């Protein structure tokens, strides 16, 4: 075994483990004075890590550990996107972490978050179902701890319990499916498995179980029941991480595996996805209309967004893959901006997350209200913001493969989604309030995070170079 391969191809994971260990050691060693620099320290490390890994080192794909781990430049791109999102979450989490009851646990937050990120990276790069499963578990177990981070708040603990139980159930289902696959094909390597796929009933069942497992992670209807409670109960920074990073990684992996491993069964999984997409988008939209708690509201919005992401998966083309990655990136900046504003308001107003409390926010905090508006417009797919472009591309990807009716249903749903996004805009701009949230100035770290997101919302669509960059690598897949 040539260990140089580890550093040559597994550089992302290796470096990330380095960052995690550094954060862990800092937490152990730093004294009272040193802890003040903990936040800048971790953010700088993440920034260096992203800068070092953003451009893939190799143009061609490779396998190491006998095919357990696959290197591919596209995977590298996706991992950098996820790492960028994590950095933004860190930036926005600072004001929450500085609270008295969480300050001493700051190190735990960083280490746990980074370890889930490492898990996702391994999951993305897996070439073997065992590797994939371990990556997924590495991503979900620390996640449950993060959800229950405010353990003295009842609903945080409840959310953690809900999350871990659903995650375990999903993992169980998935393992069951994988065991069927092993039984029918005699291997767990992705490449060997594809050749032995013939679409027998057992394999279809396996595919459905496997899909359900990932469906829990992406929170598609009907596997979405944990989502709203968990999103509401978890600390806002964790919710934003859960809604974007974890979802993005799972969606990308789902597409990679469906296209690669289950390629011979394409008509089955397309049919499955067809129904799931319609259910996810429609049901989530209808539920979102009635929500008053902004975190629950965004939970349903993110279920519906997941349905849109699946439109790219159903196309199964390299172009669809580009659209998916681009969509995840754009969705990430917009959703993180929305959660960032919610978190800032929550921290500075004594925990107000209800839509009615937001009445008249524009009068007192115009910049935050505007940021929220732009983020919501991007989520709704309004030009000239990035969301319009990413939505157009996934629609085009699905339309190209002949899913005309599906795209039509999705488009009608964008109008419904616009309605509930506008309800928030209405609360901030139009509704009057006798006791609006007082004017406040959010801290530097939050503002940097929001500025990054806002730049993404404004620039990613109009400047086509990001999209071209992703496209260049996807066609190598």
């Amino acid at each position, binding site marked *: 075994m040539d260990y140089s391969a580890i550093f040559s191809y597994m550089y992302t994971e290796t470096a990330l483990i380095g960052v995690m260990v550094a954060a862990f050691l800092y937490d152990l060693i730093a004294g009272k004075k040193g802890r003040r620099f903990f936040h800048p320290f971790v953010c700088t490390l993440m920034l260096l890590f992203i800068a070092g890994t953003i451009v893939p080192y190799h143009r061609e794909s490779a396998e190491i550990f006998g095919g357990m781990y696959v290197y591919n430049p596209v995977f590298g791109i996706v991992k950098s996107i996820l790492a960028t999102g994590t950095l933004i979450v860190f930036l926005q989490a600072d004001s929450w972490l500085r609270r008295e009851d969480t300050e001493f646990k700051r190190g735990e937050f960083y280490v746990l978050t980074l370890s889930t990120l490492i898990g996702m990276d391994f999951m993305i790069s897996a070439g073997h179902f065992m590797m994939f499963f371990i990556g997924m578990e590495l991503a979900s177990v620390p996640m449950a701890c993060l959800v229950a981070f405010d353990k003295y708040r009842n609903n945080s603990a409840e959310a953690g319990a809900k999350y871990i139980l659903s995650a375990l159930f999903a993992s169980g289902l998935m393992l069951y499916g994988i065991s069927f696959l092993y039984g029918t094909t005699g291997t767990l390597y992705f490449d060997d498995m594809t050749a032995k796929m013939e679409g027998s009933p057992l394999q279809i069942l396996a595919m459905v179980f496997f899909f359900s497992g990932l469906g829990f992670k992406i929170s598609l209807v009907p596997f979405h029941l944990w989502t709203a409670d968990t999103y509401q109960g978890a600390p806002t920074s964790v919710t934003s991480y859960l809604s974007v990073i974890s979802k993005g990684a799972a969606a990308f992996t789902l597409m990679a595996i469906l296209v690669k491993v289950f390629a011979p069964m394409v008509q089955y999984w397309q049919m499955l996805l067809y129904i799931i997409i319609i259910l996810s988008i429609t049901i989530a939209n209808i539920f979102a209309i009635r929500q008053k708690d902004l975190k629950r509201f965004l939970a349903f919005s993110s279920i519906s967004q997941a349905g849109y992401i699946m439109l790219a998966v159903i196309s199964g083309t390299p172009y669809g893959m580009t659209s998916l990655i681009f969509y995840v990136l754009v969705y990430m900046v917009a959703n993180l901006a929305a959660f960032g504003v919610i978190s800032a308001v929550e921290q500075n107003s004594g925990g107000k997350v209800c839509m009615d409390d937001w009445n008249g926010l524009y009068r007192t905090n115009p910049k935050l209200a505007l940021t929220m508006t732009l983020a919501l417009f991007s989520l709704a797919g309004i030009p000239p913001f990035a969301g319009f472009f990413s939505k157009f591309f996934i629609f085009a990807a699905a339309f190209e493969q002949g899913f005309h009716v599906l*795209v039509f249903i999705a488009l009608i749903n964008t109008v419904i989604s616009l309605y509930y996004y506008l309800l928030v*805009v209405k609360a901030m701009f139009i509704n009057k309030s006798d006791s609006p949230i007082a004017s406040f100035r959010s801290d530097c770290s939050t503002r940097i995070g929001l500025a990054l997101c806002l730049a993404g919302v404004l620039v990613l669509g109009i400047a086509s170079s990001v999209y071209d960059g992703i496209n260049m690598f996807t066609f190598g897949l």
Partner: protein
Amino acid sequence: MNILSLFPAIPAAMMLGLWLSRNIRQIHAVMVTGSSLLLAFAIYLVFAYLGMRADGQTAEMLLTDSHIWYAPLNIHYAVGVDGISVAMLLLSAIIVFTGTFASWKMTDGTKEFFLWFCLLSVGVFGFFISLDLFTMFMFYEVALIPMYLLIGVWGTGRKEYSAMKLTLMLMGGSALILIGILGIYFGSGATTMNIMEIAQLHNIPLSMQRIWFPIVFIGFGVLGALFPFHTWSPDGHASAPTAVSMLHAGVLMKLGGYGCFRIAIYLLPDAAQELSWIFIILTTISVVYGAFSACVQTDLKYINAYSSVSHCGLVLFAILMLNTTAATGAVLQMLSHGLMTALFFALIGMIYGRTHTRDIRELSGLMKIMPFLSVCYVIAGLANLGLPGLSGFVAEMTIFNGAFMVHDTFHRVVTIIACTSIVITAVYILRLIGKILYGTCTNPEHLKLTDATWDERLAVIVLIVAIAGLGLSPLWMSGMISDSIVPIVSHILN
């Protein structure tokens, strides 16, 4: 850089200027400079365009330019103008200019109001210069969304309901357009998004055209107030602040007609010929129903909004006749209706600003109190009912003339039905003028009111000059338009 790009670039620069403005004087300075620049530039464009035609440039689109944007979908930033778009750009520039002066007295949230107003203008101007389906659609949506906040925040009456209804209905229409655009793009072989090139290819199978034509036509028709998708229009116009009503009825509703012509009919010509009868019936209903509805309204803005439904219905009615005369009439009607409805809304805004009521039962004898505004109101009314010498006459004459040229019973019958709208228009306009302007003033409070101030006079006079100019010497404008329509109509019929 292509000079056409300045049209969306100037409002964008105005937005930046507004962002940096500190007080109301600076805001006004930015708006006046920007909108005058736009107007001057639009007038220059008309002469430049006519000059290029006179020099013998026969290409369908002039001043074209194209930059690749998103290569995998063949999306370009492609611009170019023909006679129709030049006329529409001129109209938009006039309305933006006068709209600025009509909202001169605004005090609450002026900066934000004008910021959204400029974003709306970016969309409108961008739409008329675009030759690429994607870019065109993008600008179309940019023009729609600011409406929500403009009506919701600065509107009057049931503003929240109206703003939401308007936004959702128009966005529903744009969802239809989006799927239609994808259908056209992939149906024509997914090689280009350029409208002119797709028309040249002319390879979308008829079975596909039959699906996409109604979808795209209804999609744009929602904005063009096509019956039964017009219901957003009266509520929206009635609740919107003055300048927004002007821009919306004056220009934005024209996006619908322009899109129906440029995309639905031009790119899907075979289905357009086959299915036009369905929409002719719907538009005839729009024309007559809009006029009748206007008769029974008591709110000045509602009267004008239903009148707009009727007149915009006439635009769609004319382009569905698929001949040069009627289509020229349609574009003239877009111009004429744009100008006179903007004038109407401006005047209603000014009257409302003084009397604080728009209910015609509470208004009377205004002629003696504010003679300038009242005379202008009479002129707007006369233009609306098609008095010769004003723009409405030229447009409607050309439309009915062209429509009657189609030789079959169906078209002639619907033309005659549509013609009755002229009479009904005369009924509601003359009754309205008689009621609110003449007679004796019953409300003593109204006797204390004053006539128009300089900014209001400027806005109104510019619009009246344009209306009279178009009515008195229509030939240069109709010549410019019909030159561009001839190749389009011959393409549709082949």
